[in-house]
């Protein structure tokens, strides 16, 4: 359960204060599939980063699973992020010198999970995302679609409740993009919360709940 109330985010650019978010209030229930749309600069990525605890609000309150996470320090934020949140990015952000398997393992390595346990979980993830053949390949030997599958498997490796995807198809062709969305939606079907930021209407329309943002405000919240 994600509960945002009165979230403000102000950036300082020179002398000017830019309001990226103006009092955003939003509840996301566990297992929801939600898309965030809007023109660029509307604050949708900023909101996603705040939900993902990569950024802190200038004002407002954020509760994650009933716990107030607004004022946690950096290291505590890292730990919460590690346990509860998985990120998928537009540019995949795989570590180029590591193999696909090692990239998927990375969050588990950072969390200090024992090698044996890691090996078992990795084998499961590789099978689940159809990457067994690619485990030993480096990112530069993989297609865009495969890279994003690796990134999704990595996001899932710690078994988080929430997956946040920032333009996950923005760097892929239409067909591959739909493929990747299908993979992401499997996460939702398995009971996870999925939030997708996109400016592609077709991708956004796949979500059960659709938010629109303009100038840092949530202007519409549709469900079907």
């Amino acid at each position, binding site marked *: 359960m994600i509960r945002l109330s009165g979230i403000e985010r102000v950036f300082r650019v020179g002398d000017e204060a830019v309001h990226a978010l103006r009092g955003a209030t939003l509840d996301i229930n566990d297992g929801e599939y939600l898309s965030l749309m809007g023109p660029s600069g509307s604050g949708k990525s900023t909101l996603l980063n705040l939900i993902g605890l990569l*950024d802190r609000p200038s004002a407002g309150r954020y509760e994650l699973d009933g716990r107030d996470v607004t004022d946690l320090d*950096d290291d505590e934020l*890292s730990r919460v992020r590690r346990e509860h949140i998985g990120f998928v990015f537009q*540019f995949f952000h795989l570590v180029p010198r590591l193999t696909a398997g090692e990239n998927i393992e990375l969050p588990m390595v950072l*969390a200090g999970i*024992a090698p044996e346990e890691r090996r078992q979980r990795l084998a499961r993830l590789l099978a689940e995302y159809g990457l067994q053949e690619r485990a030993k390949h480096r990112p530069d030997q993989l297609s865009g679609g495969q890279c994003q599958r690796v990134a999704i498997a990595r996001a899932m490796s710690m078994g988080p409740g929430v997956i946040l995807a920032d333009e996950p198809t923005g760097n892929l062709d239409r067909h591959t993009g739909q493929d990747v969305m299908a993979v992401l939606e499997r996460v939702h079907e398995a009971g996870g919360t999925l939030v997708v930021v996109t400016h592609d209407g077709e991708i956004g329309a796949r979500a059960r709940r659709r938010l629109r943002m303009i100038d840092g405000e949530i202007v519409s919240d549709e469900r079907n």
Partner: protein
Amino acid sequence: MRSADTLEFAWRVVRGSPGRTLLILLAMSIGVAAVVAVSSIGEGARLYVVNQFGSLGTHLVIVLPGRSETAGAMPGVLIGKTPRDLTLDDALALKRSHAIRRLAPLIVGAGDVHVGARRRETPVLGSTAELMAIRSMAMAQGQFLPSGDPRHSQPVCVIGAKVADELFAGRRALGEWLRIGDRRFRVVGVLASQGQSLGFNTDEIVIVPLAAAQALFNTEALFRVLVEAKSREQIAIAKSDIEDILRERHDGKRDVTVITQDAVLATFDRILRALTLAVGGLAAISLAVAGILIMNVMLISVTQRRGEIGLLKALGATGGNIRAMFFAEAALLALGGAALGLAAGKLGQLVFGQLYPSIPFTPPWWAVIAAPLTAVLTAVLFSVAPARRAARLDPVRALSKR
């Protein structure tokens, strides 16, 4: 994050950019090699000097005329003022001390030595039979000076190997006669080649009985008295005995200097150790330079790897994790550089050893430990700033492609 995983991660980074890694390894290894090589040269010089002093003989106490407060200079170099001569009777009186095993009075001069038309200027030592034991000399042929009353002498001499070679040109020198000034001496022995000791090359000296030298140089004054104590523990007793006896004989004046080998050795040891430390410290500056290089390369690396660092944070890495990764990377580079440097230093030491076989080049133990340790410490120290910068990176900005 587990330490093994942190190391593994750092190892992948180090392997991932070989050019950068080689550069740092080179800088680090030059620093370590310089420390090891320079300090092993210093240590070699120290051991050389210590060994040279060791060849003076065991439990040696040297008495020289004149009062000098400096105990640290080499006895061959020290010229004390001589208010009163040190005489043979003084020397013989020292035999009263129970701490003294044997002693040899010594007169030194330069003599014009000739055999037929061949002539040569050499140092001429006047002494007694006991000199041989005190200085642990060895004979190549014949006998050393005969023992007997040192006030009377026979016209015999012992010559160095080189002197024998030059004056007798391959002929057998033993039993032949030579002239020093206008006096004739029969060669009763040839010294075995021994090298430098007490400021003389024993290959190039002629040794005659003390009384003959007194007559030859027309002097009663002794240059030195070499005294051998009965044991190492008795050196101090011998020293105070000598001072007491000579003060009594010289109307209560302390006008001799008594040098124990230990004191001289200790002084030299201290001086050379300090010197080795000093040059080692100079070489360590190159380690600091290598540390600064590591810092620069790391700072560049933080900038280049912004995206990766942002990603690691997004995946749940704490600031501590990130810092540990950078420290591990720096430590790995420093350790690799140190290992290379130690090898290179060892190689340099072997090369020097080949060039100057008589000097025992060995790096002192502290250099072998301190150099790699300093390398790792400077590397980690200098990566504090880059690591902190990396750990503080704002993940949102680091991840954005702008």
